[in-house]
């Protein structure tokens, strides 16, 4: 009898538990790693081996490649699942895992680098026929005159973005031609400080877009499929708060046409694993913004509407197996909504870590709660404030909304503030009910 493969889970919280569950279904052994502040994480009771890798600080634990690789060696891991966040999109880590003779559950470092640089990613997407925003052809030149000319051609308003950007850093909105020089200089400076690179590019700025994304899966045998679209427009400060699948009010054939292009792009770039193409959608046009080369927080809404276990499939293709289904097998049925429940003040969005004094997760037909918390668990202040994902499935969008309202009302989390009251407000707002939420709606106070 061959020894089961051992998967080291280089993450924490709900996603670590989610990965443990997928591994168990596949008969794989699991290794949990944790920081000194995380010894009480729920998934650690369900792993085959566990080891504390460092102090509470993420930089010395979940972001410390050397420590994670040492844990992998000591615990005799065969594969590493990075989850999301932390090192999940770090090509150096993916490369180091492979160099150590282990399997990285994700795309190759080369593809991660290609898609991590927004300028090279956009070039690849244009070549693959994926729609992009009109913008500069690559990085803006050093010459102020040439930069001005390029920006004038794009038209105003436009946005200047760092090629290595993320989290809103290295970005400037330019309202008119007179603002170009300052905006480019500031974006370059910020990008240099934040990412060590000063390359910036410019593209058309959309005033009221929705955030629509396409989930893809690809294997090492040249197969790539798309698994439907998600609408992630309910955001505050660039952070998603609620997601749903499929997006309301966008014709199925438009999404299908886009999905086919995304799957084709995966084949073009040699993508392997689960990934997401992110788009802004305005006036019936999709515009590519970036690709996330990892599992997304919101993957469960796609799982609910397609009945495909994305994490399980992700591990399977990392082992070299072909995808277990073809594009024609993928059927998107019904409607799913996810609420990210964060330990935060629902009005100020300030983190609110602390001890959970009461925990009653919602249940019933069509309700899924992905969470690592339990009564007496202490939410530490060191990491992301996500404590649970509540996902509901209904036959229609209206049905799913009703189920989500009931599930949020049933959920009890005592001892800390959560985002539930805000999500309850969103579910009552006219713009959400009409499917007209844009990425700015929440920040502009349009959903009260």
């Amino acid at each position, binding site marked *: 009898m061959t020894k089961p493969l051992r998967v080291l889970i280089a993450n924490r919280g709900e996603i670590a538990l989610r990965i443990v569950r997928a591994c168990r279904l596949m008969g794989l052994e699991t290794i949990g790693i944790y920081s*000194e502040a995380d010894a009480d994480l729920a998934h650690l009771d369900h792993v085959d*081996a*566990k*080891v*504390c*890798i*460092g*102090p509470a600080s993420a930089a010395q634990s979940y972001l410390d490649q050397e*420590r994670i690789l*040492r*844990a992998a060696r*000591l*615990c005799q891991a065969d594969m590493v699942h990075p989850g999301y966040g932390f090192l999940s999109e770090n090509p150096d880590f993916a490369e180091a895992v492979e160099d150590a003779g282990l399997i990285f559950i994700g795309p190759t470092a080369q593809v991660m680098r290609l898609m991590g640089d927004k300028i090279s990613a956009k070039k690849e997407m244009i070549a693959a026929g994926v729609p992009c925003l009109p913008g500069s052809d690559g990085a803006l030149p050093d010459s102020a005159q040439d930069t001005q000319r390029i920006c004038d051609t794009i038209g105003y308003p436009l946005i200047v973005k760092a090629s290595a950007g993320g989290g809103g850093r290295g970005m400037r909105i330019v309202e008119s031609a007179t603002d170009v020089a300052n905006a480019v200089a500031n974006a370059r400076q910020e990008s240099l400080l934040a990412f060590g690179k000063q390359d910036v590019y410019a593209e058309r700025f959309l005033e009221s877009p929705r955030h629509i994304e396409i989930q893809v899966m690809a294997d090492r045998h040249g197969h790539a499929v798309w698994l439907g679209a998600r609408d992630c427009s309910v955001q505050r400060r660039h952070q998603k708060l609620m997601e749903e699948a499929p997006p309301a009010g966008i014709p199925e054939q438009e999404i299908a046409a886009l999905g086919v292009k995304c799957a084709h792009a995966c084949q073009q770039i040699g993508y392997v694993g689960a990934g997401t193409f992110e788009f802004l959608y305005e006036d019936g046009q999709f515009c590519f913004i970036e690709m996330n080369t990892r599992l997304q927080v919101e993957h469960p809404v796609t799982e609910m509407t397609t009945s495909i276990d994305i994490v399980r499939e992700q591990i399977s293709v990392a082992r070299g197996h072909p995808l277990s289904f073809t594009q024609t097998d993928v059927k998107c049925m019904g409607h799913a909504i996810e609420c990210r429940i964060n330990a935060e003040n629902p009005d100020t969005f300030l983190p609110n870590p602390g001890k959970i004094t009461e925990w009653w997760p919602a249940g019933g037909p069509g309700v899924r709660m992905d969470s690592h918390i339990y009564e007496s668990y202490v939410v530490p202040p060191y990491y992301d404030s996500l404590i649970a994902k509540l996902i509901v499935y209904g036959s229609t969008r209206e049905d799913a909304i009703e189920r989500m309202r009931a599930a949020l009302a049933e959920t009890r989390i005592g001892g800390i503030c959560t985002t539930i009251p805000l999500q309850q407000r969103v579910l009552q707002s006219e713009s959400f009910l009409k499917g007209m939420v844009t990425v700015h709606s929440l920040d502009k106070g349009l959903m009260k």
Partner: protein
Amino acid sequence: MPDHNTQLIDLLTVLVPRMREHGIVSCDVPLEEGQLKLELTPLQIVDVLHNVSTVESAARTVDALSPEMGIFSEAVVEEGLHITKGAILGFVDVGPLRLALDAPVSGTVLLCLVPVNSVVGYHQPVFRIQPD
């Protein structure tokens, strides 16, 4: 004889914890009919966990922690030994490095919590010490 047995059990009930507390591993006990040689074997983990299960007992012990994640490669003290603060209790190998595991307090080594040559995590308890 029943009386003698009862007295002996009473004596051992008091004597053994005191020996453990002070790191004494053997002693001779004079009896009416001769002499009893008492040698303590190292405590088993389950025994110690049982013995320190009360809040009061647990509060009195201190754990010596691994300085890093690695392999606990060697224990240089035995259970029952009295050690002083800063004494080296064992070593943890981290790649080519061999890190000393120091005693955080003076006292008696109650037990070793981790088998030699096994993986230890960062700041994982390796020895339990009864402070002086």
